[in-house]
């Protein structure tokens, strides 16, 4: 008999029968709110199941969305980093252009303020040897550049052309140990010769001991060397040592920053006729 055959699962059967009866009773009994007990119990239990399921699905969905959002943020982050890099490069370019423009403006001002015939040239190379302080510019004989032409910058004297080629030229900087220029102290008009030392300083020699020279005085070109036009700033006296009869040592700090030269002007006019007009001596004094 079937009833007898299922005796092995007595406990489960008993439980099933009890539950069955409880369900049967619950369908008929209503709660205080007038809702059948079974309905309320089922709803109560199922609402908890729904709550758990909702929590799980919401958690999974949120995690999934966060995962994708994180991926998107990562992509955006990379994109923004690239944009920042590009903008930084562009900013540097703009800044460089601005500086270049400013430099050119100064050069243009210098060109218009002088009666000199000049041509602008870009510095395309530095010195090949530390023993020689030279630069290479992109103008040569094809543009009318010749040896011993003065090279100036808005701040002051740069040097002279020593080796021109057809499309380039080597410029000996004033700070080279073999360079020299006729100079005078602007305030006292005391004359002397400025020579390079191979360092970032200049030395002024042959200044008469009777002349009044003191640190801070501006030294300009005298024009007597036949290379540099008169009145261009060489630098500012940094220190003075007086000797017997004449000054033993006058150290000049150059007006031009030779390490930052980008564009220079080549004075094409012969030095004998070249002269700075106006307050050129005030320009570029550091």
């Amino acid at each position: 008999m079937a009833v007898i055959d299922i005796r092995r699962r007595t406990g489960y059967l008993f439980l099933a029968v009890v539950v069955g009866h409880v369900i049967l009773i619950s369908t008929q009994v209503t709660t205080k709110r007038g809702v059948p007990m079974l309905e309320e119990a089922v709803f109560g239990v199922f609402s908890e199941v729904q709550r758990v399921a909702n929590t799980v699905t919401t958690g999974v969905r949120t995690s999934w969305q966060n995962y994708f959002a994180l991926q998107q943020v990562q992509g955006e982050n990379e994109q923004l980093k690239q944009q920042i890099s590009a903008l930084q490069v562009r900013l540097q370019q703009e800044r460089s252009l601005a500086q270049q423009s400013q430099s050119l403006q100064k050069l243009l001002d210098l060109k218009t303020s002088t009666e000199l015939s000049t041509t602008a040239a870009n510095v395309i190379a530095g010195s090949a040897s530390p023993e020689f302080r030279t630069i290479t510019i992109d103008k040569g004989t094809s543009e009318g550049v010749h040896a011993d032409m003065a090279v100036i910058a808005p701040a002051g004297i740069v040097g002279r052309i020593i080796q021109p080629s057809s499309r380039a030229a080597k410029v000996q900087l004033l700070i080279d140990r073999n360079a020299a220029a006729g100079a005078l102290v602007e305030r006292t008009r005391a004359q002397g010769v400025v020579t390079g030392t191979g360092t970032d300083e200049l030395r002024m020699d042959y200044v008469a001991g009777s002349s009044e020279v003191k640190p801070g005085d501006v030294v300009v070109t005298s024009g007597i060397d036949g290379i540099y036009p008169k009145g261009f700033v060489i630098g500012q006296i940094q220190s003075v040592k007086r000797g017997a009869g004449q000054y033993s040592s006058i150290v000049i700090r150059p007006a031009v920053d030779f390490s930052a030269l980008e564009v220079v002007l080549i004075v094409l006019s012969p030095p004998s006729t070249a002269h700075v007009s106006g307050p050129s001596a005030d320009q570029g004094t550091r």
Partner: protein
Amino acid sequence: MRAAGVLIAIALALALQTSLARFLVGGTAALDLVLVVVVYVALTSGPVTGMFAGSAAGIVQDALSSGTVGIGGLANAIVGFGAGVIGQQFIVTAAFPRFVMFIVATLVHSALFMGMYVLLGLKEFPSPWAAVLSQAIGNAVIGIVAFAIIESLPGVMERRRFRRSSR
């Protein structure tokens, strides 16, 4: 065969309960013949059969008594299952243990039945002890008698056959 016998017994008990019992005890339900049958089936056939018998009988009883269907069924099923388990674990063949068994079964059934009604707020049972106790004794007596009659039936039949054959 046994299932059919159980169903027939339940049907007879219900018929007696609804018709004859009221004549026996002044019209009050001082006897629960269905419960007697359930306990009997449980003691003789085991807990599962007793449980199913109790469940079926109780549900029918509930349906006929316009009560909440299932409460009587659950109470009867639990009693049937418990009686069946006890019948398997202990020797309940003598009259007294059976008597006690019926008493306890009736008390448990009443407790479950009334307890569920009260618990669910469906019905009140003020001072039920006397009625329950009298029902328990009545059920026990009927149960003992029923056991005695049923168990004596095979012997009576055998003796009849013996008498016929000896003539």
